[in-house]
Each structure stands twice: as structure tokens, then as C-alpha cells.
């Protein structure tokens, strides 16, 4: 079929509606990004904790610097806790999504078997 240069009213409407669509830019796997951020925060927390003890607190007897080391250490603990939380939440989201899809699929298969559909 040759395509007419003159758009039909429906296609003109389609063009106008497509132009009005708000494109947000989709993400194929938001959970993956969440898990990566979680792992990064966990590692950062661990590094901060080690640095706070061996790098800041241990080599000195200065109470001011040891106080700073305590703050850095607590920051590290915070990072590790938040990172672990993110990792667990996004891992579970992924798992439950897969589990739900599997459940739906099996239910459809079961219906087909019951009704003896091809």
C-alpha cells in the first residue's frame, strides 16, 4: 500500500497526542541500580569504620582527634546500615516480582489444563 503524504484525521490526532506525551526516560532495571548503590554504601561504611579506627583514632592520644574519629566511625555505621537496607529491599523486590510472574504463569497453565485448551 502506498503511503499518502496527506495524513488522515486519526493520524493527525495520533501525532498531536504523541507530541503531548511526557517522556520521562524509562529504566529497565531500577532494582539493579538500587542494589548497586546499596553495595557501594556498605563498602563505604566499612572503609570509613576502618579508617576511623586505624587512620584517625589509633595513632593519636589527642581527644579532639579521637572525637572526630568517633563521628567518622558513626557515619560509617550509618552508611553500612542504609546500604544493607537498600540491598535487602531491592533484592526482595526483584525476587517477589519473579515469584509473582511465576505464580500467574502457573495459574494460567493450570486453567488451560483444566479446560483442556491447546
Amino acid at each position, binding site marked *: 500500500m502506498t503511503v499518502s*503524504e496527506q*495524513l*488522515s484525521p486519526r*493520524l493527525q490526532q495520533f501525532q498531536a*497526542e504523541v507530541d503531548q506525551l511526557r*517522556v520521562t526516560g524509562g529504566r*529497565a532495571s531500577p532494582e539493579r541500580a538500587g542494589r548497586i548503590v546499596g553495595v557501594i554504601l556498605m563498602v563505604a561504611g566499612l572503609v570509613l569504620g576502618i579508617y576511623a579506627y586505624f587512620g584517625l583514632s589509633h595513632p593519636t592520644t589527642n581527644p579532639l582527634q579521637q572525637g572526630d574519629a568517633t563521628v567518622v566511625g558513626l557515619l560509617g555505621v550509618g552508611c553500612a546500615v542504609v546500604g544493607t537496607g537498600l540491598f535487602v529491599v531491592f533484592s526482595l523486590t526483584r525476587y517477589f516480582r519473579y515469584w509473582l510472574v511465576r505464580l500467574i504463569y502457573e495459574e494460567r497453565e493450570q486453567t488451560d489444563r483444566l479446560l483442556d*485448551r491447546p
Partner: protein
Amino acid sequence: MNPLLELRNIRAGYGTIDVLHGVSFSIGAGQMYALLGPNGAGKTTTMGVCSGQIVPSAGQLLLNGKEVGGVSSDALARTGVCLVPEGRGVFPNLTVLENLRMATYAGGSFSDVVDKAFTQFPPLASRRHQLAGTLSGGEQQMLSMSRALATDPALLLLDELSTGLAPIIVEDLYGRVSELAASGLSILIVEQFAQAILGVATVASIMLHGRIVRTGPPGEVADELAAAYLGSAGPASVVSSQGAP
């Protein structure tokens, strides 16, 4: 003029498993595009991408020249991209009329939707109060299609229309589909059983292992189908007409 639908190097899949490995094709206004391939080739995933249900991990999805990656499937449906899914695309516990009422989301009145459906698919009229789940396979497909057509789509995506249907019913359904294409509607059809649509499509492609390996007029593509399905053709051995000099 921009193609109505265009896929550029689309990669998509489920979780960490990639199904489409760089799929590119376009459909112009009034074209009827047949996407053929064996089970597991990635055809339904392609439909999912086109209808906005699957977000591609790479590549571009364009409607009328505008990139619409990330737009929700309901927003795409409202613009006129309509998917008739594989198998039973009906609500089995609702009657025919109740199923048709579901098509009024696009703004059309219920009486218009019913009139349109019963005019295009007369067998449904006598089944109007019957539960959709108890209709025959062909009637369920008719209901599914009539619900799609009632929304006045600009682009119709038909996924495996022939699944579980007798050849004579498939032939009848594709006869109706070709009438729709003749009226100017753009249609993308995904099929495993190619002979059903090669007679009515304007362009056809063969998809294997998530890649389009051949695109061309249906008559030419038909010659290579058997080889492709039986595995003697692959991305390396079949030259895409799009990429050919």
C-alpha cells in the same frame, strides 16, 4: 514523513536475561508488518516493548518520530497504540457486553463500541450475554479484536492471532485484518505460523534469537522461512535486506 512506529537497536529482556539483541524496524502509516519467527525468538517481547509494557535496556522506541522510551503502557494505549495479546485477551468471567464496556476507557460511548463490534464481527451479536470464557477460541479472538478496534487505534499490535484456532477461522480473522489495513490502519502482526499472514502483509521480517535476520516483501521472505525455522539460517548466514547494499 516519519514512520508511525520505529524501533532502533532495541535491547530488552526480563531481569538479567536479554531477549532482544538490537532489534530495528519501522512501520509506516497504513502498512501491515508481519514479524515471523519460531517459538522463543523474541516476538512477544518485541510486542511488549512496542506497547510500553517492557522497558528496553538500550535503543530507542519512536512513535511518529518522537522517542517515547519510558512512557507508560496506559499512556501509549490512550494515544492509539493498541495491543491484542496472545491467547485469550478477554475477561473470561465477564459477558461479551461487559467486555466491550471495558473498551470505553478511550472515551467512546458504550453504544458506539457495541455497534462497531457487532458490525465488524456479527457472530458476537448473538452471544452478547454469554460469558466470554465460554466462547469458542475464534469468538474470543473476535471479541478481543473488536474491543481493540472500538478504541479507534492508530497502530494495532496483534500477537499470535492464530494461537489455538482452526485454520479456517484464522483465515477468516486475517481476512478481516487485511480489510482493516486497507482502511489505513497500521498493523504489526507477530506470528509463528507464517503462511496465515504472508498473503496479506505488506512487509515481513524473520526474527531469530532476538535479532531480525531478514526483512523484505512477504513473497521473498517466505522462501527463506523453512530454512530459518529449521535452524540452517542464522544471523550470519541470512543477509538482512535492510543492511544489504
